């Protein structure tokens, strides 16, 4: 096979009734298992959804200077973390433009796991110059699942021997599932109560089976990327290559984004002695970003009117779209949306958008382009604060 199966493939391929697969970092990833992704989506918000997230890149960073290396690379403060902490963080090039984003988990005093969307081994090694640290690409050895949704904790508590009950948001615990060692972090890409389970690839199938068995009584469904995409938009979480272009791939200046322009100011720790891109970021912080990454909600009445005008009932985008859609303020282009779709939970048409700062304040009314019966139209949209959905159970 040219596209790699993940260690879960013997199970996921049988379950994938839709035969709808897509690529994810050269792996096969299910778009949806059932014929429609609808129930998979609702499982995230109503019960639990099980995702194979093995295609993430994973690096083991170990040694006396492991924390120093990571602090050199990422924008958040790694030195201050304790064992069991997980950080979500972007990292930048020297211009302060985002290269990638991912998580840093502190597995031990001198042991970390970095996950990322793109390969980063060369970048890590280059940044490690002169440091006492070992960097291993463990992407293939470590398999990973995400179990997301309100019943996720109850399912895992049936299977693990402790550590889960009090596990806080963005904390990680080492435990075992039916005797197989795993690390479970309270993290995810859905904005809901959820966990990610990290395991050695040889245990993948046994752990999958255990989850399927116990999850059956908790409404759990294996879920694919269509469902995940809707949930992550509701959660206001950006996606590389969709919502932003990595500084590694950008061909022109305007394709670059700083963390400030991606609504990630909270991840930029300018107190740290030094890290890649710091000077540029300090300057930008003083200046204020030219662009902002915000949520927009489509005004239903204006949307419906466009359809009624041609004699149709409104048609909302299911599943979510990923493309660049212009947003206007009268005659001027205020920015563009990069992902959007219908939120079955919120009953709203929502999108993530890049807007020039002067139009980015919550409450601003703008217009988004859409195509109705082959004709370009504009619907009214309102700028809102992200996330669109943020249930208390995510943190409690």
């Amino acid at each position, binding site marked *: 096979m040219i596209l790699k199966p993940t260690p879960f493939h013997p199970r996921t391929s049988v379950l994938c009734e839709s035969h709808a697969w897509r690529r994810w970092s050269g792996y096969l990833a299910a778009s949806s298992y059932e014929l*429609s992704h*609808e*129930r998979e989506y609702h499982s995230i918000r*109503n*019960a639990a959804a099980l995702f194979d997230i093995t295609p993430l890149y994973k690096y083991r960073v170990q040694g006396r200077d492991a924390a120093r290396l990571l602090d050199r690379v990422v924008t958040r403060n790694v030195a201050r973390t304790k064992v069991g902490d997980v950080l979500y963080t972007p990292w930048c090039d020297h211009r302060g433009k985002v290269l990638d984003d991912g998580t840093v988990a502190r597995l031990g005093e001198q042991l970390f796991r970095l996950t990322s969307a793109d390969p980063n081994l060369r970048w890590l090694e280059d940044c490690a110059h002169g440091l006492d640290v070992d960097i291993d690409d463990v992407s293939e050895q470590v398999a990973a699942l995400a179990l997301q949704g309100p019943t996720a904790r109850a399912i895992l508590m049936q299977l693990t021997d402790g550590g889960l009950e009090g596990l806080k948001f963005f904390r990680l615990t080492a435990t075992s599932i039916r005797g197989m060692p795993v690390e479970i972090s309270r993290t995810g890409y859905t904005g809901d109560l959820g966990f990610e389970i990290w395991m050695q690839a040889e245990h993948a199938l046994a752990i999958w089976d255990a989850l399927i068995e116990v999850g*059956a*009584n908790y*409404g759990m469904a294996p879920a694919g990327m269509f469902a995940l995409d809707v949930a992550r938009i509701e959660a206001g979480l950006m996606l590389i290559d969709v919502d932003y272009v990595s500084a590694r791939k950008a061909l022109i200046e305007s394709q670059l984004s700083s963390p400030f322009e991606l609504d990630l100011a909270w991840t930029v720790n300018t107190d740290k002695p030094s890290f890649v891109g710091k000077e540029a970021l300090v300057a930008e912080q003083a200046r204020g970003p030219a662009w902002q990454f915000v949520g927009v909600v489509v005004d239903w009445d204006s949307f419906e009117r466009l359809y009624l005008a041609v004699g149709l*009932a409104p048609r909302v985008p299911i599943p979510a779209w990923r493309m660049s859609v212009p947003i206007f303020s009268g005659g001027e282009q205020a920015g563009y949306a990069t992902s959007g779709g*219908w939120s079955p939970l919120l009953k709203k048409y929502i999108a993530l958008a890049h807007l020039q700062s002067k139009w980015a304040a919550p409450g601003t009314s703008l217009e988004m382009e859409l195509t109705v019966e082959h004709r370009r139209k504009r619907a009214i949209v309102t700028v809102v604060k992200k996330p669109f959905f943020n249930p208390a159970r995510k943190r409690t």
Partner: protein
Amino acid sequence: MAAPYEAIVIGGGHNGLVCAAYLARAGKRVLVLEQRDRIGGAAVSEQLFPGFTFSVFSYVVSLLRPEIIRDLELPRHGLHVLPLESTLTPLPNGDYLAQWNDHDQNRRELARHSLRDAEAYDEFGRLMHLMSRAIKPILGMPPPDPASLLPRDLMGMGRLGKYFRDLGAERFHALHKLLTMSSADYLDEWFETEALKATKSASGIIGALLGPRSPGSAYVLLHHYMGELDGVFRAWGFAKGGNGSVSTAIAAAAMSFGATIRTNAPVSQVLIKNGRAVGVVLNDGEELRAPITISGADPRRTFMQFVGAQHLPNELVDGIRRFRFRGTSAKVNLALSEAPNFTCMPGVGAHLRGAISISPSVDYLERAYDDAKYGEFSRRPYMDIILPSMIDPGMAPPGQHVMSIFAQYAPYDLKGGWTDAKRAAFGDTVIDTLSEYAPNLKTSILHRQVITPPDIERMIGLTEGNIFQGELSLQQMFFLRPIPAWARYATPIEGLYQCGAGTHPGGGVMGASGRNAALTILGKMK
């Protein structure tokens, strides 16, 4: 001293709550008075057995108006409507008919029964879609009275007239048929598979003392498709937490706008001074005053109990007397130790996440009705079943289930009257009938609740146990609901309004009556 409230709503059913929420949203000080210890009326969830939550009465959201979901921001207040994926009709010969959401899956299944029906299905769906689009705007407006010469009615009729003109011949003819035919006859024009015709025609008999061959039952078929129109809003589906969460979300919205809700507050009458409603009296004698009183209870209770015939014109009293209730629907709610295992489709699967309909043939339904015509309950009842815990795992402990069985016919006027023994016998009949299709059912029952029409009347005050606050038959709809001159939420008593399902557009967890009433009242308050 100014009255502390500008409006009092009698009854915390979902329509009363919607009405209160809209009034409060417009800045009015509103009080809702509910007789029970909980709000919701026929849309209520209760933990009747430890760990098991029952949607005691209504069990699916059918036509909850999208504009209400938006205006009141119900998702933010906790409403999450989950899809119902399919309808399974088990057949006596061990086979089944399934209707699936997925087009290809559905077509393949129908083709197993009839290639013609598999083709007709889409065309039927298309026509019903067009029809329900034509009808839909009527739900959101107070019905114009065709016999009236008031400008508002003439304008309303004018708008309606334009709708009908714009329908074109195809749709106009279909509409005429839907308004005049029986659902069985109408479906005969389209399909040949018995179980398909029966299962579809069942939506025309829900809540009414009508059979699938009774004229006029076809129209209600449309309501089914109207839900589909609002498909993205999931106006048709299962509310997480049971149907009570529709009510609690509306109540939360109402309170967020400042409305006050009092439970355990049964109203005995509306206070009338000089022909004007000035407030209400509770059973314990407490008087509460407000310039506007709105009843969310059904028309008989509103006019005959709260107001009293002495305050009302004769035509109205006659009209209310003639307004048909005749409840025929019962509910059997079960707590189960395991999922039912249907012989026709063994195991736990997607079919248990949808509706299960005991409607193998039109004859079966018509015979069930025949029993009721002569005052008996159906020996082999029609049933519409869902397993809420298969959709929302929070409804029952892990691995166990709740089953909601809506059953017909159990006529309010049972020959010899309802007794505890008759109720138990009806419960047994339902379970025996269902056990023929799912044999493990009987041994897995942990708890059972049987609710007959008199129980519905006693528990939530619905006259004669009619689930829609009055039959949803054509002679009682639109400008005829509840009676011709008073079909626009107002009453002959100044300051008194109606907002329950007994007004246009009628029953179901739809909220339209409550909203239309509130908008009418706000229009007058200006």
